[in-house]
């Protein structure tokens, strides 16, 4: 089976923020900064959590859980968590 899209990428914090914004369909992407507590958005829910789990798996080849996501209070915290896995 050929390699999929989960080869490990080097991603800047800014690119990571942009990618997190893309997991939200109805929230304006201009609202996303490294300090944003993305779990406070009205759109946040189990489906967006699944999207972030999938995004991290596909781009970093790493596993994060819903509990890991909940423990992060900003996108930057999530970025650092994922980078350090």
């Amino acid at each position: 089976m050929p390699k999929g899209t989960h080869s490990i990428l080097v991603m800047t914090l800014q690119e990571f923020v942009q990618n997190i914004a893309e997991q939200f369909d109805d929230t304006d992407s201009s609202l996303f900064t490294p300090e944003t507590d993305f779990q406070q958005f009205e759109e946040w829910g189990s489906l967006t959590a699944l999207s972030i789990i999938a995004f991290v798996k596909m781009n970093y080849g790493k596993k994060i859980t819903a509990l890991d996501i909940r423990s992060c209070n900003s996108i930057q915290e999530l970025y650092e968590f994922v980078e350090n896995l």
Partner: protein
Amino acid sequence: MSPFTVQSALKGDIHLPTILFAKMDAYIKYLEYYLPQKTVSNNDLQQVFPEWDATKVAKKTGIEFRHQSAENETACDMAVSVCEKLFAKHPEVKATIDFILLCTQSPDFKLPTSACLIQDRLGLPNSVGALDFNLGCSGWVYGLSLAKGLLCTHIASNVLLITSETYTKYFHPKDKGNISLFGDGAAATVVSNAGFAAIGEFALGTDGSGENNLKVKTGGARFQKPLNEVTVDDNGYILASDYLYMNGPAIFNFTLETVPSLLEQCLAKNGLHDMADFYILHQANKFMLDTLRKICGIPKDRFYVDMQNTANTVSSTIPIALKDALDKNLVHKGDRVCTAGFGVGYSYGACVLDF
């Protein structure tokens, strides 16, 4: 050369089974499915759950309709219905059935075995062997492995593998997540020594440490009586002791961790070093399948995704998808099709079918 001669020539009986069984192949001969009459659309669900965004959820899950068994219609009833449908289309097959395998987690009774009730209701002879096995989304693949074993050991020659599930009876009325994802359904697969698809090699697996992530806690021997515990888990899902609970993110992670290597093992066992011609995986939901496809690097045109009108029917999604794919001419003679089921248990299995 008679078996006796073979045995004498080898001066021992160790090699005899290998010689006798090596040429025995198992095939899928017939395939049929049944869906209960009642359908529930996303719009119907929107009426019940006004806070629910039907369009958004449909886009993500790929589900528009789900079928729900009637209050007095059980998995056993649906199993009989699907077999009668199959026998009506292929009347000659009924007299050949000599084994019933029923995969269900919704038996009519704790005992007797539902497969025994089905033997009687279908009017099959007393010489038929019958048993239930309790698996969910991996059930059809496991059923094929059992059927192949029965055939290759000459215990049976025409196995009626039935998958039938009524998860909708297990849902808490406020559990909109599971209500939207699952539907009821049944499938019948006749496994024989001739047919349209040869059953290849299997890769199977189990991880019982995931037991709490997809569970109906009460009603079995451990907790016989309802505990009446209803709460909400950390992800906002209803966690009720007497109803079906699914930890969505945990199941999603299990799938992403397990299925890619399961497919690799299965392909290797079947001598496929690149990829299969086509993939029919357990049709859980569109988002999960899209993610798996991307992680495995499988092109879209080789990967079946369609549960729009059925939702997740648990052990019947693969035979339903396979029959639909055949009807849509997506699978052709000569194709090697990789199938895989995964879920509750955790239990998982994959198999290549040679068309």
